[in-house]
């Protein structure tokens, strides 16, 4: 085995264990911490796939922003340090069903996808990759529509947040 394979296996096991622990852990903050570990594992996968930009973005957005938001919300809303409430509500079977269906769907798509079995083509000019990504996001032939839609959604969310949180003028 090459060192890369060993690292892959270790990280894969850690990520999976962390992912399972997110749902089985009794304590909300512990769940959030396991989530951070599993997200970190995914960032390591990005590094192994030679996609440093995505790895770093994964850490910034998912760990630096979203996970910290989770922890903060849990700290503010729950009674700190206490495991209150049942672990799952009455809709747990629906959630499990949807998760299973999603997994099956992704599996079907991946099995039928050619790229799953073939080796990835070598990317030319590695230092220009981020540049290409940026150009692809704004070029009309490629991803400008999803990009703009996402931007509009984010702006709407921000305005909504300001409206909800802002002081009401009498």
């Amino acid at each position, binding site marked *: 085995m090459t060192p*890369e394979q060993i690292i892959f296996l270790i990280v894969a096991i850690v990520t999976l264990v962390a992912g399972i622990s997110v749902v089985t852990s009794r304590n909300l903050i512990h769940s959030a911490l396991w989530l951070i570990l599993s997200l970190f594992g995914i960032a390591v996968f990005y590094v192994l796939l030679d996609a440093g*930009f995505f790895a*770093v973005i994964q*850490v910034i957005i998912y760990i630096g922003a979203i996970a910290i938001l989770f922890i903060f919300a849990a700290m503010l809303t729950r009674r700190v340090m206490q495991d209150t409430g049942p672990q799952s509500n009455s809709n747990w079977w629906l959630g499990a069903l949807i998760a299973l269906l999603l997994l099956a769907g992704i599996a079907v798509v991946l099995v039928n996808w050619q790229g799953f079995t073939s080796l990835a083509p070598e990317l030319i000019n590695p*230092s220009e990759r*981020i540049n290409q990504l940026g150009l692809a996001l704004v070029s009309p032939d490629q991803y400008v529509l999803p990009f703009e839609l996402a931007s509009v959604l984010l702006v709407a969310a921000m305005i909504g947040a300001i409206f909800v949180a802002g002081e009401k003028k009498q």
Partner: protein
Amino acid sequence: MNFLTDPINFIANWLGNLLLNFGMSQTLVTVILKFIGAGLVGMFGFSLVIFTIWLERKLYGRIQDRLGPNRVGPWGIFQTFPDMIKIFTKEYITPIGVDKIVYNLAPILSVSAVLLTWAVIPFAPTIVGTDVNVGVLYLVAVGSIGALGIILAGWSSNNKYSLLGAFRAVAQVVSYEVPMVLALLIPVLLGQSMGVNSLVKAQNVWFIILSPVAALIFFTSSLAETGRAPFDLLEAESELVAGYQTEYSGLKFGMFYVGEFLHAFTISALMAALFLGGWRGPWVEQVPILGVAWFFIKTFIVYFVVVLIRISMPRLRIDQMLNFNWKFLTPLALVLLIVTAIVEKAFIMIVPSLQLMEAAVPWVRAGVHLLMNILIVWITIQLLKSHRINAVRVVAQPRPIAVAPEPPASVIS
């Protein structure tokens, strides 16, 4: 390449060849060398802290008209070693009701987050831990892990003052990340790269000359990230005992302490690398190891300013601090980013028609950017003047506290 001009790469090459001759594969040798390098950089960071703690205490002492540490070694330079041994022997107190795993994890996280930063700092043209091509983003990512350490420390301690400290930490560290990232984008824009080493290479003219406002925003917001005075709201001892680190003792407290000092030094190093030209200096092309000297001279100059600010500034109030961030630094950084982008693009389009000399181009570019920066500063000052507080609102009339009682009539007569 020989030993005298570039010792670190010389040793690394020698070791790599030795391991290859033992029959190891190339990838395994690379992994081993990276591990050794990471260990060395970490050790170097920690041993540097031993020195900076002494330096800071000495400066602190001199400014407060004291001598500072002066017993152990010449000028007290070895004072940190007895302190270290003392902190090793202290008891670990684990209060009832703490979340044991998280409680022990938090100090490690907060130190390692700072130490991870050192992986991408270029000490010399050839001495870089890893030249990640998204180095600047990596710095931001690692910084957010430090915030996580503080939050977890505050939460797991089962103490309301710790928790309040953690709340403030989120408010402060996460908010100040916004102007910091925006200010970091300006070197990226000017250097047209996100790797820290290539940013240093791009600084024919130091970026602090091109964009002093960005340097100032970055400096201020990273000072706030370190959580030291004047931004030490997270551990304000007059309000919160010691904030998030109240319940920690012994080496666990020592970890936070070391993390804080190392963070202060790290932001100086980043400032030096991103805005002050890093290892750039005379004769670096011939003797790469000289870059280390230039780099550390610049770093220590910035570090001196960091310490001076810590010593001489009073603590801010939390609402003032957040207002300063959201209503001043962030808009300023946004405006600066837009203006810099437009000026840079316009300059690239116009410059072929100007027919300048090859050597003059970077200086002309620097001049244009500097002018725009001065303009932004001037407009900002004018805007601030229009919001100046002209008079303090009078809330109540002063009332004499002690009034002499009327003497009894018998005394008068």
